[in-house]
């Protein structure tokens, strides 16, 4: 209660005066101070907060600017804040990079959501080809005997037709699985053979789709922001999302075998434990979660 009252007062009243005093003392605006005083993801994060909380329309709109309009937007901010390019050369470069990251993250979420919303459709040739590609990548030495066959359970689908397993993750689940198998084929094969372990085994594809959900919900809740701000100097793209998914898959497999669950029936409990672990890692301002192969 007290904390939320303080927050309200700070946002609407003190913040303005604190900023004013700093401005008088340092002769620089808040954005300039952040650009000078911080680096990496922390800097972008602070710039984003400052822009979101700003009462100035130009600054507020800057967080959702288009990629092509970033340059112009930085100019507008400099005009608005009366920042002379000659006096502060680095400001323009810094702001441009931050805006690309901030607006890029928002665009990435929209792109990912677009793929997720597309349900798997077995009448769509492109979808079917992707599914067949997944089989060929994971089982290069074995041919599918039919489109509908029990063989699908060899790569961890539930029944004899994978189409019903993508559910709420739609095409995104399949695209993630194919990306991992294509770009990290050795790791995918290694994990697939792990997943056939007689006591600790799990269903490879189904777990993969559950990990798509995890990556998606971390992106949606903004938990992935600092990771992308630290690891991608410009706008993050679909490729970066896939890379994070691959990181999750490899780390989850390690985690599962370290934890040695009693049986697959405890999957959801361990999934949650793993999710919490990742969320904790993402709280660090210096976080970069990339593959260690």
């Amino acid at each position: 209660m007290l904390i939320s009252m303080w927050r309200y007062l700070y946002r609407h009243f003190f913040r303005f005066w604190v900023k004013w005093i700093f401005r008088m003392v340092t002769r620089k605006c808040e954005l300039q101070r952040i650009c000078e005083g911080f680096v990496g993801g922390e800097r972008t994060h602070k710039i984003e907060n400052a822009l979101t909380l700003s009462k100035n329309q130009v600054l507020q709109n800057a967080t959702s600017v288009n990629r092509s309009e970033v340059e112009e937007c930085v100019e507008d901010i400099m005009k608005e804040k009366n920042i002379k390019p000659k006096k502060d050369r680095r400001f323009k470069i810094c702001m441009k990079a931050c805006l690309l990251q901030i607006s890029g993250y928002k665009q990435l979420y929209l792109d990912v959501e677009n793929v997720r919303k597309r349900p798997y459709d077995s009448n769509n040739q492109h979808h079917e080809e992707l599914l067949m590609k997944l089989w060929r990548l994971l089982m290069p030495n074995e041919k599918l005997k039919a489109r509908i066959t029990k063989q699908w359970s060899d790569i961890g689908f539930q029944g004899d037709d994978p189409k019903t397993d993508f559910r709420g993750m739609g095409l995104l689940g399949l695209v993630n699985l194919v990306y991992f198998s294509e770009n990290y084929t050795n790791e995918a094969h290694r994990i697939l053979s792990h997943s056939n372990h007689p006591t600790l085994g799990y269903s490879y594809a189904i777990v993969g789709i559950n990990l798509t959900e995890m990556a998606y919900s971390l992106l949606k809740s903004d938990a992935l922001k600092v990771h992308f701000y630290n690891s991608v100097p410009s706008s993050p793209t679909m490729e970066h999302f896939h890379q994070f998914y691959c990181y999750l898959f490899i780390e989850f497999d390690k985690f599962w075998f370290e934890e040695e669950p009693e049986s697959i029936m405890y999957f959801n409990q361990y999934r949650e434990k793993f999710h919490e672990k990742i969320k904790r890692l993402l709280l660090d301002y210096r976080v970069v979660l990339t593959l260690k192969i």
Partner: protein
Amino acid sequence: MGLLSILRKLKSAPDQEVRILLLGLDNAGKTTLLKQLASEDISHITPTQGFNIKSVQSQGFKLNVWDIGGQRKIRPYWRNYFENTDVLIYVIDSADRKRFEETGQELAELLDEEKLSGVPVLIFANKQDLLTAAPASEIAEGLNLHTIRDRVWQIQSCSALTSEGVQDGMNWVCKNVNAKKK
């Protein structure tokens, strides 16, 4: 009357706890049903590895609902969850006619289980929102439900997606919680 007993009377009776088992083939809609019961978002569902459990308050009962994955590979684990079940809810994808036989067999096996003997069973003929869904009456006939004599049972058509029919089914569950035949 002592103070203590007055206090005891003031404290309302705690809800009766009910253990409900949610079973059915994969893709029948068990997790969607569970989330619908708990009024949670149903747009990001993924296949269930293992189980989910949620507690829902309803009509003076605390319903502990166990949603167990339906994949063939984990069906052998179903029996680990039979003990002390008060009501069995069996979910069927009414539009997946190709698997009616398979789902009928699984149900018949469940009804033969000693640990589930006499346990009331509610069959949800789910996915009625789909045009191709078979009506509940057709499913009841196909599964020979009328031959069930050792317990109370009910078939309820529903759509876990739109929640139509779900509450009717749960009302039946609450009415028949204590109808377990010994």
